[in-house]
């Protein structure tokens, strides 16, 4: 569906965003953060939740909406235990590994989402010269399938696969992992490629007139 050149270009977009976001995250946590090379995934809907441990796995999700010249979604998915660890680091306090997050802990994670998401989008915007806005983040702590399905389901109108750029961040000592998904709306993909000068053929977008 996409040429090697286009895949490379999208991976590079992911890389630039993730590099910036990793720096911001590292400063926030005062820890060393490593990132894996972003992966471009064009996969059936069901397989997306597999990448974070299956549809019933308990995860924390932080969701932000991108608007402006392109539109899309950012979803940060943190496995349960790692989310507990993160709040301990952020608030500098030990916690019991129980089910619920306090309001304070939720807002600490939201703020983390805000910082990581904004630095990613700022880098993206600088690189592509597109004007991008990011919404306030929203938090959910629930089954991975439920959290991930929403931003992906919109792809259902154009096919049976979802498109996403998946970057895995790992924190140095405790090995806290978080998945950062950039999920551009279908039309925005072409705009994104165009903005960085990769010429593309119109592949998939027909007759939707922007309706979702």
């Amino acid at each position, binding site marked *: 569906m996409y040429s090697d050149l286009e895949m490379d270009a999208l991976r590079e977009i992911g890389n630039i965003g993730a590099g910036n976001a990793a720096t911001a995250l590292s400063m926030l946590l005062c820890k060393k953060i490593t990132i894996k090379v972003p992966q471009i995934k064009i996969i059936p*809907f*069901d397989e997306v*939740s597999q990448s974070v441990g*299956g*549809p*019933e796995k*308990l995860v924390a*999700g932080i*969701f*932000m*909406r991108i*608007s402006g010249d392109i539109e899309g979604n950012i979803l940060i998915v943190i496995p349960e235990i790692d989310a507990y660890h993160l709040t301990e680091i952020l608030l500098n306090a030990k916690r019991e590994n129980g*089910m*619920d997050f306090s309001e304070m802990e939720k807002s600490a994670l939201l703020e983390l989402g805000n910082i990581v998401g904004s630095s990613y989008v700022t880098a993206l915007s600088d690189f592509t010269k597109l004007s991008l806005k990011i*919404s*306030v983040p*929203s*938090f*959910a*702590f*629930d*089954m*991975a*399938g*439920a*959290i*991930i*399905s*929403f931003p992906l*389901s*919109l792809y*259902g*109108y*154009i*096919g*049976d696969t979802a498109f996403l750029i998946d970057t895995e961040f790992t924190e140095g000592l405790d090995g806290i992992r978080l998945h950062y998904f950039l999920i551009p709306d*279908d039309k925005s993909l072409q705009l994104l490629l165009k903005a960085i000068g990769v010429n593309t053929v119109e592949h*998939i*977008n*027909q*007759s*939707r007139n922007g*309706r*979702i």
Partner: protein
Amino acid sequence: MAEYKAAKSPYSLITLGLGSCVGVTLYDNLTKVGGLAHVMLPDSTLSGKKDYNPGKFADTAIDVLIEEMLRLGASKNRMVSKIAGGAQMFQIKSENNIMQIGKRNVEAVRNKLNQLNIRIIAEDVEGNYGRTIEFFCEDGRLAVRTIGHGTRIL
């Protein structure tokens, strides 16, 4: 996601981690044939592709599910429905209504069932949490499991 399946007692049908999607179950009590569809989106007419998978949309998934149940010996005028799902996992203000896809899925499912004269005898919909549902063909029970919101039997 976007799948549908019919089965007969003693089997059960399960779908994991429903968020904005809606699980639609149909049941014929006499033949003990049950069906479950995992609806992702409300409206097939908005599909960009013509050869779409009918299991994806509220207005098409229920039709194909009924067909499959008829093949297992069910009768349409005995069918009753239970539905679950259609949550809004994230609360964000948005200029368009994509955030409310769960709610729109539920409405589309209700409309479709109403058109087909199939009664909804129980539902557990909307809210802001995920659901795993299991439908038992032996007696038409629908178990809805959640994290932090308990388990309900419909």
